[in-house]
């Protein structure tokens, strides 16, 4: 993998709360994820994992408390956004556009110096170079996930957020995902992965459990690298 993040951001949640009307999605969560960590977010549906990730991505504002991006304290919000990659539940790509058109659009929107080169690089990294001219709507779940990851990687962000990335993937897709996450971590990016999958969580150096919007357990000290080898 040629992925080389320009920086590695951490993220600190300080007494963060989030309310949706009468529903409390997060309750006074205080949590610091350091630069270069690989963290798994675990918990049942509705526990607040997605809300936490979307706050880290600056898509949601907390109702109370604050979210800080460590290593980006002096940057404008736009510059911080450039350093964040999100792979969400949905693919965040346009079905009607080809893989290349999707990536080219986002590369230009981020103001990359050489968008065409960046597109070729990520297409190669996710193994979609031979399907680059096909519309995203024709892609299988695994290929859509590769395209979603390519979109998130195109700016070589220092903070990567994955929301249930293993959902719907077959065995081969899952192995590819594991290898990709490991490669990204080794390249120096900070990874936060929300998952129900214990084996995916085992790749991370640290696991954090949420329940009903509360942080209920944190496996603690971050490990600098992986705890187990991944096949392939």
């Amino acid at each position, binding site marked *: 993998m040629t992925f080389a993040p320009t920086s590695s951001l951490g993220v600190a949640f300080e007494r963060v709360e989030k309310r949706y009307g009468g529903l409390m999605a997060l309750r006074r969560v205080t949590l610091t994820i350091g630069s270069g960590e690989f963290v798994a977010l675990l918990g049942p549906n509705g526990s607040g994992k997605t809300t936490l990730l979307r706050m880290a991505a600056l*898509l949601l504002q907390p109702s109370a408390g604050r979210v800080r991006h460590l290593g980006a304290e002096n940057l404008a919000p736009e510059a911080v956004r450039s350093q964040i990659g999100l792979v*969400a539940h949905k693919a*965040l790509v*346009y079905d*009607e556009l080809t893989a290349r058109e999707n990536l080219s*659009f986002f590369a230009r*929107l981020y103001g990359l110096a050489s968008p065409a080169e960046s597109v070729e690089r990520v297409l190669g990294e996710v193994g979609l170079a031979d399907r680059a001219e096909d519309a995203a709507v024709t892609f299988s779940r695994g290929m859509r996930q590769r395209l979603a990851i390519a979109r998130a990687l195109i700016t070589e962000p220092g903070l990567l957020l994955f929301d249930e990335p293993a959902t719907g993937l077959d065995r081969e897709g899952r192995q590819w995902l594991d290898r990709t996450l490991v490669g990204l971590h080794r390249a120096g990016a900070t990874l936060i992965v929300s998952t129900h999958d214990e084996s995916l969580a085992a790749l991370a150096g640290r696991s954090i459990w949420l329940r009903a919007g509360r942080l209920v357990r944190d496996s603690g000290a971050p490990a600098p690298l992986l705890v187990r080898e991944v096949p392939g």
Partner: protein
Amino acid sequence: MNLARSAGLVFGKELRIELRTHDLTHTVLFFVLMVAGLFSFAFDPSSTESRVILPGLIWIAFFFAGTLMLQLCFVREQVNDTLAALRLAPIDPFAILLGKILANFGFLAVTEIVFVPVFSLFYNVSLGGVLGRLMLLLFLGTFGLAVPGTVFSAMTAQARMRELLLPLLLLPVLAPVLIAGVEATAALLGPGHALEREWVVMLAGFDLIFLTATWLLAGFLVEE
């Protein structure tokens, strides 16, 4: 990245998707054709009657067609949560709205260019001497539809019953545009063929006020 460039990219993306799918333009073209045809057959107006009803008919046909089109504008962004992808990008939120406003304006303007001669034919009203001025009025009114229409489309995209909500919110707001447009068009098709300045100023003023408000509130309008 500057506003014009990022809005241009969003506009280009909208255009590319529309050229590939024709979802919005086909909806609008079919609706306007139905209105023009059905009213013509139902009332079979004389040339004199046509001059009286045509201004209102043209504006109402394009307004309802535009409302149909605008409903799809942000629903498209919901399919794969691409609005979140746009919001993640380091661009001014107004650029997202501006790109879409320009695209919606463009799609409606194309429909008007196609269908104004069709209305002229169906209702036997010659537009030869006033076509340029009529298009100016329609473009000013269409921009007035596209600006609040795009904004309300963004606001209602996640709402239940959005198909009902958008016209209910939008059409009262557009009343000044409709009144100014119909009055100006009636004067233009009347005996003096005059382009009445006060209605043109009212249309342009509406466009400017809503565009400024959209620019000021863009951050709130596109947030989750």
